[in-house]
């Protein structure tokens, strides 16, 4: 009897431990994902910057790096992410009320998704500005280049979605990995290698916001947070598109404010995709796919959030609060030593790493996809239009799916 009870207690303890350890893994995953939205500005700033005079398409953080303000870019990005973290957590309940019960606005969005995606594309095209003076001919050329990029990446997306890829090491494969790595990663590295420029000494003094900039930055965080909510709801729309929406809505073009807005969009997107998992049972990111497989995600029905969501939000707030100073610290270290690192070797190593990982996870077919994706990714860089047009790879197949009949 005693033995039986001991076995019973042991099984109960084992079940409890398994349940708790799964929750701990979930907590670890969400903490890493939120920290990633803070620290990813460091490689984004210090890697892949092309020569500003030669290149037509320079990202805002790269522009600051080339002016010796790489560390400043990192600090403002971390500020944007932290602000969005605080506002984003407060937005979860209102977003739930709007999208799910009682207002059920998501149903209306879903029914009109084709038009929403079309509006996003038209907005992306409409906000393109020619790089060689604002003549009508230049406008038409820019518009043509942007449309061509969207269509070509869309056709590419339609072709590859059913292309069978296999890992030679029998690892889980996804066709989206070589596609997105080529469109956004590899193309940027090759472009910067082609038009490489020596990185000048970076200013590592702590930046301070001037009184006028404080208000502007707050508005950037706020609009970025709202645009990030949109990004998390609409499939195929990237944080870059969210940033365009946020900046266009207030006519802001200053580099610092662009970085703050983009980071706010990124962080709030990570928080709200988690909330959407509970609100609409939608998995809009790799993190939420893993969580839905790992934990018993229950639907958020009433006003009180499910306990599991609270358990995951607490580490998000803690991790985000720690990631803010950590990002600034790491950014300062990298900025201090970036001139000592042989830049070309760093970029070439990244290219080799991307190619190797593509082969390991997706084999030879994946390498072919990576190659084609890279050539498409080079189009916006050479034409001088936004890289976010390459998201046609997802948007166009989605539009065809939602095409009204």
């Amino acid at each position, binding site marked *: 009897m005693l033995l039986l009870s001991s076995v019973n207690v042991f099984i109960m303890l084992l079940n409890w431990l398994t349940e708790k350890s799964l929750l701990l893994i979930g907590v670890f995953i969400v903490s890493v994902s939120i920290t990633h939205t803070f620290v990813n500005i460091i490689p984004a700033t210090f890697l892949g910057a092309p020569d500003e005079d030669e290149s037509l398409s320079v990202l805002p953080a790269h522009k600051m790096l080339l002016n010796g303000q790489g560390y400043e870019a990192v600090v403002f990005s971390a500020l944007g992410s932290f602000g969005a973290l605080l506002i984003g957590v407060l937005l979860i309940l209102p977003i739930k009320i709007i999208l799910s019960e009682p207002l059920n606005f998501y149903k209306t969005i879903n029914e009109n998704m084709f038009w929403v995606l079309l509006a996003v594309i038209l907005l992306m095209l409409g906000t393109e500005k020619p790089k060689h003076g604002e003549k009508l001919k230049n406008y038409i050329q820019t518009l043509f280049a942007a449309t061509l990029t969207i269509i070509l990446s869309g056709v590419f997306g339609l072709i590859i979605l059913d*292309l*069978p890829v296999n890992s030679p090491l029998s690892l889980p*494969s996804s066709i989206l990995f070589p596609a997105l790595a080529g469109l956004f990663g590899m193309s940027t590295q090759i472009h910067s290698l082609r038009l490489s420029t020596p990185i000048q000494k970076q200013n590592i003094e702590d930046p301070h916001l001037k009184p006028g900039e404080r208000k502007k930055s707050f508005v950037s965080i706020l609009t970025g947070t709202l645009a990030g909510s949109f990004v998390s709801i609409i499939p195929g729309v990237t944080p870059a598109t969210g940033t365009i929406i946020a900046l266009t809505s207030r006519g802001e073009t200053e580099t610092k404010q662009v970085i703050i807005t983009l980071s706010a969009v990124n962080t709030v997107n990570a928080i709200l995709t988690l909330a959407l998992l509970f609100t609409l049972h939608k998995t809009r990111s790799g993190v939420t796919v893993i969580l839905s497989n790992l934990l018993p995600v229950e639907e958020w029905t009433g006003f009180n959030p499910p306990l599991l969501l609270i358990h995951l939000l607490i580490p998000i707030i803690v991790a985000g609060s720690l990631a803010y100073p950590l990002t600034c610290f790491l950014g300062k270290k990298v900025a201090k030593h970036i001139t000592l690192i042989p830049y070309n070797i760093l970029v070439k190593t990244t290219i080799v790493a991307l190619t190797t990982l593509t082969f390991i996870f997706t084999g030879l077919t994946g390498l072919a996809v990576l190659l084609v994706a890279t050539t498409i990714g080079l189009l916006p860089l050479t034409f001088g239009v936004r890289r976010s047009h390459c998201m046609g790879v997802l948007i166009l197949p989605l539009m065809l799916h939602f095409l009204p009949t």
Partner: protein
Amino acid sequence: MRRETAPLILSTTGVTILYILSLILQPPHVTLDEIPSFEGETVEIAGVVTSVYITSSGNQIIGLRNIQNEPPGNTTIFSMDKIDVNVDDIIKAKGSVQKYEGKWEIVVHNKNNVQIIERMNKQKTSIWVVATEPEKYMSLPLSLTGEIKNLKISRNSFTLTNSGYSITVFSPPQYLFNLTTGERVKVDGILLYDDKTFSYYLLGERVIKVD
């Protein structure tokens, strides 16, 4: 050659080659029990449809079990497009393997990637014909057409009437929200007998509005 031309030619050629490659490369055919070893990969499967369900957001979930001569296994197909399949149809599907909420599923990106190998013929008949010899149609898949009366969403049921004859239909809830009393519908389902009420009823699998 202008600077812009090279990537444009390369990308257009690359997309064309990938298109040809997509026509040549066919995914491996796997049995349903082998699916877990192909996570993330595109595969081709075949099976017998066990259930067809439309989610509230309009996606279709198709339950599938192994074909008789294959090892036992089952899975679900997730499709954003609506595919015209019925329970007991034998289908072939091409899609990527993923795990969702702990269960393996095949995500089909295009409705053309699902082919019906053998359609289970539902016997089209009238309610009055079934009413005269119900035992002859017992447990058989039927397709009945009629007018909706006595719609009870809370009980997932309605009465299907035609030419003065009627039968109770129990339907999957997702179909009921779009229906109203007086509408003409076609119901695919199986005729069953309720020994508590001494009456026959149709266990509906699909309800389609007809003109």
